[in-house]
C-alpha cells in the first residue's frame, strides 16, 4: 500500500512530462532546490542547537523551574508548524500589532527583519520541531549513567570537557535520530511554507497539480522529494541501530550540576523564552483571535468542519489500527525474513511527505477508475461516474499509508509483552486459541491499541496536503479551513479551527509525558 504510490511516483520520473516539466526546470527548479536546501540546513542547525542545549540543561543541570521546563518544553509539539507560522506572521508582519506599535513609538523609520523571508520560516519551523531533538537527546543524557563521565573525570577532564568529549558523542545516535525526524517533518511540511509563500517541493507539487493541472509534473517533483526523504529515513534507521550499541551501561544517574547566580537565571530565561515563543505566545494569540471572531464565525458550518475532521480521523484511526494489528500478528506468527521485510516496508509511509503520497495514490486510483468505468460500460452499457477518485476511500487509503507506522509502533511494543510462553501457558491451562486471544491478548494489547489510535487520530486531524489534494469536492475539514483562511491572510478567522487542532494535539503529548514520568 505504501510501496505502490512510491513506485508510481518514482516510475513517473522516467516518463516525459513535456512542456510543463521543461517550463518548471527552466524557471523554478533551481529556486526550489535552493529553498529546500536552505530550509533544511537552517532547521537542522536550529533544532540541534536548541534541542541539545535545552536537553542538557534540563537533564544534567539544576536551576529554578527545571522540573516544569523538563516536560513543558515538549508542548510546542502540540501546535502544527503551520499554526505557529501564521500566528507569527499575524503578529510580526508589517501590518501586525507589533510593528504597528513600534512605528507609533519610534516613528516609521524603524527597521524590522522581514518575517516572511527565509529566516522567518526557519525560525518558526525550528520552534515547532526542536522538541524531537530535545526529547531524544534528553533521553540519551538521562540514560547515559554517570560511569562514563566519571571515567572521563578520572582521566583528567573537567565537567564541561567531559560533556563535549564524552556525553555529546555518546548521545550522537539519539541526536541524529531526532534530527532526521525533524528534517522529515521539514521536507513533508506544506502548511508552513504555504503560509510564508516560501516555495519548496511540497508547494510546487501542489501548484503543479492545481494551478498547472499537470499530474506528471507533480509526480516528477514528488520523485525528487522522495529520494531525499528516503536518504533521511536510512539515516534515521542507522542511528537507531547504533543506539543499541551506544547504550550507557551501569551507574546511577549523574548528580545534577547546580547552576547558581547569573547562570541559573540565564538557563531559566532561555527555557522560558523558548517556551513562550514556541507555545504560550501562539496559544494566547490564537485564543485572543478566536474570541474575537467566535461570535461571527461559530455557526453551523463549523460543526460541519468539526464533524468532518472527527469522522475522517476516527475512521482513519480505526482502519489503521486494525491493519496494524493484523500486521503485528503476521510478524508474530510468521517470523521469516520476508514477512519482516513486508511489515517494515508497509510502515515506511511516515517518511513519505503527504504531498508525494497524495500524488502517488491519485495516479493508480485514476487507473482503477478508468478501468472500472470501462468495465461498467461493457457490462451495464451505461457510463458510470468516477468510482473511487475523489472519494473518502481514496483519502483513507492515503492516510493509512502515511500513518501506518504511527499506529503500528505502539501496538508492536505491546505485542512484545505477550510472550510466546504466555500463549502456551494459557493453552496448557485448558483455554482454546480463541479464548486465549480474548482473555490474554486483548487486555494486554488494549493500551497499545488505544495509544496507536489516538496518535493516528491526531495526525490525521493535522494533516494538510493529503486532505487538500484528495478530498471530495466541498468536503472541508478543520485543516482545510485553516489553509483557506490563511491563504487569504485572515489570521483571526483561522484561529478558531487552529484551537481545535492544538487541543487535539495536546492529548498524545499528555500521554507521552505521563508515560515518560513512570
Amino acid at each position, binding site marked *: 500500500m505504501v510501496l505502490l504510490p512510491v513506485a508510481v511516483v518514482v516510475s513517473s520520473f522516467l516518463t516525459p512530462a513535456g512542456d510543463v516539466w521543461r517550463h518548471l526546470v527552466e524557471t523554478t527548479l533551481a529556486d526550489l532546490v535552493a529553498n529546500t536546501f536552505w530550509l533544511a540546513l537552517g532547521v537542522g542547525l536550529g533544532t540541534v542547537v536548541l534541542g541539545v542545549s535545552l536537553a542538557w540543561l534540563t537533564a544534567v543541570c539544576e536551576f529554578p523551574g527545571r522540573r516544569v521546563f523538563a516536560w513543558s518544553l515538549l508542548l510546542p509539539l502540540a501546535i502544527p508548524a503551520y499554526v505557529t507560522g501564521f500566528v507569527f506572521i499575524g503578529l510580526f508582519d508589517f501590518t501586525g500589532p507589533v510593528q504597528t506599535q513600534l512605528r507609533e513609538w519610534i516613528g516609521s523609520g524603524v527597521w524590522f527583519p522581514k518575517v516572511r523571508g527565509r529566516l522567518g520560516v526557519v525560525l518558526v519551523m525550528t520552534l515547532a520541531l526542536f522538541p524531537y531533538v530535545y526529547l531524544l537527546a534528553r533521553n540519551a543524557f538521562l540514560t547515559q549513567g554517570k560511569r562514563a563521565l566519571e571515567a572521563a573525570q578520572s582521566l583528567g577532564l573537567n565537567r564541561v570537557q567531559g560533556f563535549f568529549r564524552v556525553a555529546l558523542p555518546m548521545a550522537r545516535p539519539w541526536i541524529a535520530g531526532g534530527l532526521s525526524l525533524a528534517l522529515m517533518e521539514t521536507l513533508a511540511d506544506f502548511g508552513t511554507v504555504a503560509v510564508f509563500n516560501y516555495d519548496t517541493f511540497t508547494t510546487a507539487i501542489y501548484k503543479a497539480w492545481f494551478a498547472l493541472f499537470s499530474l506528471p509534473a507533480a509526480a516528477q517533483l514528488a520523485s525528487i522529494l522522495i529520494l531525499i526523504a528516503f536518504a533521511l529515513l536510512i539515516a534515521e534507521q542507522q542511528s537507531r541501530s547504533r543506539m543499541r550499541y551506544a547504550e550507557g551501561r551501569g551507574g546511577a544517574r549523574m548528580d545534577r550540576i547546580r547552576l547558581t547566580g547569573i547562570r541559573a537565571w540565564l538557563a531559566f530565561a532561555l527555557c522560558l523564552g523558548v517556551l513562550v515563543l514556541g507555545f504560550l505566545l501562539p496559544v494566547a494569540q490564537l485564543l485572543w483571535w478566536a474570541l474575537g471572531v467566535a461570535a461571527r464565525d461559530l455557526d453551523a458550518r463549523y460543526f460541519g468542519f468539526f464533524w468532518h475532521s472527527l469522522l475522517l480521523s476516527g475512521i482513519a484511526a480505526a482502519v489503521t489500527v486494525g491493519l496494524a494489528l493484523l500486521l503485528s500478528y503476521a510478524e508474530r506468527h510468521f517470523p521469516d525474513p520476508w514477512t519482516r521485510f513486508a511489515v517494515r516496508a508497509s510502515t515506511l509511509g511516515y517518511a513519505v511527505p503527504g504531498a508525494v503520497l497524495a500524488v502517488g495514490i491519485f495516479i493508480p486510483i485514476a487507473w482503477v477508475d478508468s478501468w472500472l468505468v470501462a468495465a461498467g460500460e461493457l457490462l451495464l452499457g451505461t457510463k458510470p461516474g468516477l468510482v473511487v477518485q475523489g472519494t473518502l476511500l481514496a483519502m483513507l487509503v492515503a492516510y493509512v499509508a502515511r500513518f501506518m507506522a504511527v499506529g503500528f509502533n505502539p501496538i508492536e511494543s505491546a505485542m512484545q*509483552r505477550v*510472550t510466546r*510462553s*504466555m500463549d*502456551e*501457558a*494459557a*493453552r*496448557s*491451562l*485448558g*483455554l*482454546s486459541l480463541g*479464548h486465549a486471544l480474548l*482473555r*490474554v491478548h486483548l*487486555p*494486554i494489547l488494549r493500551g497499545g491499541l488505544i495509544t496507536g489510535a489516538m496518535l493516528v487520530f491526531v495526525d490525521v486531524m493535522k494533516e494538510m496536503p493529503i486532505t487538500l489534494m484528495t478530498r471530495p469536492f466541498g468536503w472541508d475539514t478543520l485543516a482545510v479551513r485553516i489553509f483557506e483562511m490563511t491563504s487569504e491572510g485572515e489570521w483571526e478567522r483561522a484561529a478558531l479551527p487552529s484551537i481545535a487542532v492544538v487541543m487535539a494535539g495536546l492529548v498524545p503529548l499528555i500521554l507521552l509525558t505521563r508515560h515518560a514520568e513512570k
Partner: protein
Amino acid sequence: MRVPRTYHRLMNANDWAPPLATGSTARAAKEVLLDLRAIGHAYGSRVVVRGLSFSLARGTIGCLLGPSGCGKTTVLRCIAGFEAVAEGEIRLGGQVVASPGVHVPPEKRRIGMVFQDYALFPHLTVAENVAFGLHRMPRMERNARVSELLGVVGLELSAATYPHQLSGGQQQRVALARALAPRPDLLLMDEPFSNLDVDLRERLSLEVREILKSQNATAILVTHDQHEAFAIADEIGIMHGGEIQQWDTAYNLYHKPVNRFVADFVGQGVFLDGKVLNSRQVRIEMGVLTGEIPRDCLAGCDACGKGCSVEVLLRPDDVIHDDASPMQAEVLHKAFRGAEILYTLRLPSGEKVLSMVPSHHNHRIGEAIGIRLEADHVVAFRRSESQP
C-alpha cells in the same frame, strides 16, 4: 514380573535400561502415567531428538538433565503438545496423545506447565493468575482452590498484588500454583529456577519438591543444573545429542555412570590409566581397585584378554588424605569450599587426581601430602580413540 521383562527386551533394542526393569518390584507395580516410545523431533533438517524413550510412574518426579542444546526442552514441549512428534508415540495414562498421525491439542492434555520466564499474565493479580485455569469451576469452589494453593506456596498475603510487584522467587511460586490449580495429571517445569540467584535456587528447589509431594503430583523438570536435579527429582535422565544416556537415581548416576559422557557431566572427577587384572580388579598408579567392573568394560576385556588398558574414573571422595600413608602427592591447586578443601594433586608419574579433604587439613601449594585410595567399586571405560 512379565511386564518388566517385556520392557527389558524392548528397551534393550535401544541400548537402554529403564528403572522399571532393573528397579524393585514395588516400583514396577506402580501405574505408568507417562510413556515415551522412541520419539523423534526435528526443526527443519536439524534433528534434535532421536529414538528417545522413558516412562514415569504416577507420583514420581522425573528430571531431564543435560547441557544446553541437548534437546531436553524440545522433549518437554512435545509432551506438553506445543511441538508435534515426527516419530514414535507419547502415551499419557495409557492413551496415545502424540504420534505422527495423532496430535491432541495442549489444552486437552491436562498437563500443567511452569515456564522458564514464568509467563505470568501481567494484567491479572496473583489470585486471578492462579484462578485462570479454573474457568469452568463454580465461583465458590474456585475461590477455595485458589486460596488453598496460595496457602501451599505461602503467598496468601499477596493475592491482590500484580506479578511485577513480586520478587523472582515469589513469581516462580505463583507460576507453580497456577499450573497446579486445575489438578493436572502431569506437571512440566522448564528450567524453573534458572532466573533465580544461586542461594534461592537451592532453597526453592527443596520447597518445590515438598509442594509437589504434598499435592501428590507427577512432574518432569528440565534443567542443566545437577544440584537442582538432585534436590528435586526421584529419577533423572541424562540427555546428550537428542538421546537419553542414562535414566537412573542420582546415586547411581554419580557412582555408576554407564558411559564417559555421564561420568564427565555428573560430579567432578579425573580419568586415570588402568590395567585390568581380573574380573573384579583393576590396577592404577595408586594401587589396586577392587569391585564390580561394569559390563561395558568387561565386554571389551573379554575381547582383548586380560591386561587390556582402561580409563578409570576417580571421584574426589575416592582419594583420602592420610598423613600416615606412604603414598605422597604434591599439592598443585586448592579450592576452599568451607567445610572441605578440594585439592588438585600431582602423582609421581605426573597424573593428576582430585581429593576432597576436611577443611582443617590446610596444606600449602607445593607441599607433598599423604594419600590413599578408598573406593568400594570401580568405574572403568574402554579406552576410546575419540577421547583424549
